[in-house]
């Protein structure tokens, strides 16, 4: 059993009357020769690392190694506690957790790349926030990480998850789609709805360039993780409401690859164009590395 495209993954789940996570689990067993217990145990271990990195920056402000960024997860948490917010507090908490993971990452702390380190905040952000809600069992959340993995595999194999190859849409866009997919499955959505969540989330990220200031995974990576955690929650709700991605999700993935290939090198993780090229971006680069050589 194997899948290369989303429609194949959905068809496998439908024909076997199982979830996408269960398809992924069966494929993983077949490919690696490991038992489902071993696979889930490893996933659980990754979830534990995710949780620690999501809570760390909320409990206390963390500064990045360069000193350019940090403390935003803590600011958002304090703001939530004041109790007067536009976005629902439970949703904002996903944002603060996502920010925390990205801040831990910028401090050369331990995180789980999902699918990459630059986009590592989004999946833990939403998963730890729904764990806090008390509505879902830890095991079910760990299982949903396999849904996210299946979607990530499709994107990585038919497009890209590398910012250097495909821009930020390939990293943050992929992570948002993966997180939305995981949420739809936890929310008892159908495999078709999982697919639509991927299409919706990814469409909203198309064209996102990778333009980190000084080449550091900080500006704008950290805030993008925070904001896209909320996008993932919203895309999952949209799909569960019955909204469909009119452009089929597989075609959205294909076009993400095409857009990535048309992006100039300066906007693909070289730290040259975009925000990195602004006067402030250049000044911050010099403040960390000195005058460019």
């Amino acid at each position, binding site marked *: 059993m194997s899948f290369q495209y989303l429609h194949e993954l959905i068809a496998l789940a439908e024909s076997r009357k199982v979830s996408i996570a269960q398809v992924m689990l069966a494929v993983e067993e077949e490919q690696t020769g490991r038992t489902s217990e071993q696979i889930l145990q490893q996933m659980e271990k990754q979830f534990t690392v995710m949780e620690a990195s999501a809570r760390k920056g909320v409990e206390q402000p963390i500064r990045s190694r360069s000193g350019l960024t940090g403390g935003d997860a803590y600011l958002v948490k304090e703001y939530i506690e004041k109790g007067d917010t536009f976005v629902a507090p439970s949703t904002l908490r996903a944002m603060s957790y996502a920010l925390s993971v990205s801040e*831990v990452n910028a401090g050369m702390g331990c995180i789980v790349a999902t699918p990459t380190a630059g986009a590592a905040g989004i999946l833990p952000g939403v998963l730890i926030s729904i764990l806090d809600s008390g509505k879902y069992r830890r095991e079910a959340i760990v299982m949903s990480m396999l849904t996210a993995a299946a979607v990530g595999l499709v994107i990585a194999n038919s497009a890209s998850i590398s910012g250097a190859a495909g821009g930020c849409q390939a990293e943050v866009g992929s992570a948002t789609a993966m997180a939305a997919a995981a949420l739809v499955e936890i929310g008892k959505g159908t495999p078709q709805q999982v697919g639509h969540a991927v299409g919706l989330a990814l469409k909203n990220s198309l064209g996102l360039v990778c333009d980190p200031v000084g080449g550091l995974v900080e500006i704008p990576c950290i805030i993008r993780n925070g904001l896209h955690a909320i996008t993932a929650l919203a895309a999952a709700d949209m799909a569960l409401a019955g909204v469909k991605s009119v452009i089929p999700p597989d075609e959205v993935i294909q076009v993400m690859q095409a857009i990535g290939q048309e992006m100039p090198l300066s906007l693909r993780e070289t730290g040259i164009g975009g925000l990195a090229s602004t006067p402030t971006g250049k000044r911050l680069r010099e403040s960390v590395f000195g005058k460019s050589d």
Partner: protein
Amino acid sequence: MKYHSAFDIIGPIMVGPSSSHTAGAVRIGNIARQVLGEEPVHVTFHLMGSFAETYRGHGTDLALLAGVLGLTTESEQVPDADRIAAASGLTYGFSQANLGWFHPNTVEVLLKSKQHSIQLIASSLGGGKVEVQELDGLPVKFSGEKPTLILYHIDQRGFISMISRLLDANGYNIARLALERSRRKGAAITVCEVDEELTDDLIASLATTIPMLKTIRVVKTF
């Protein structure tokens, strides 16, 4: 398809800040060390593309060094790799280079022990996944995700048949096999990925049974 496992996507557990520029770089350094198979004393890294532009910001330099020192992506000591290198007498240098048509995140590693040296070009493909593109001037490809045999030998008829028979007799399934040679009957490298863990017994029997084999190295990334 380049990505096979759920853990290629959810994972690795790693020290930040970048899966391609930090975790992938640790893995490349680590593979180079395993191929050298001896204590390294000097290493030179030639970086191209995005690696060259942003290596300092991502800690790519520390990560490559950490890998050469034998550390893994999860190691909290990755940020201290320069100090560990100084303490263990490993000297190193970094420079930019155009290595040719490779993925934007590509590095050439020239690694030396007291007796030997190797040259390796590898790319970091995203999400911490890496692929070796060239070894000692030959276009060999491997990732180290599965237990991998790197066999240095002389090109001679019957070599592949001996290897495959020996592996089969010992219960190994070959996942991938490739031979590259400089010229007919010249120096050659065979890369063989297997599904099962490689044992010392197998390595010993390969060394004693196959006359044209010069050096055996085992590579496995974490």
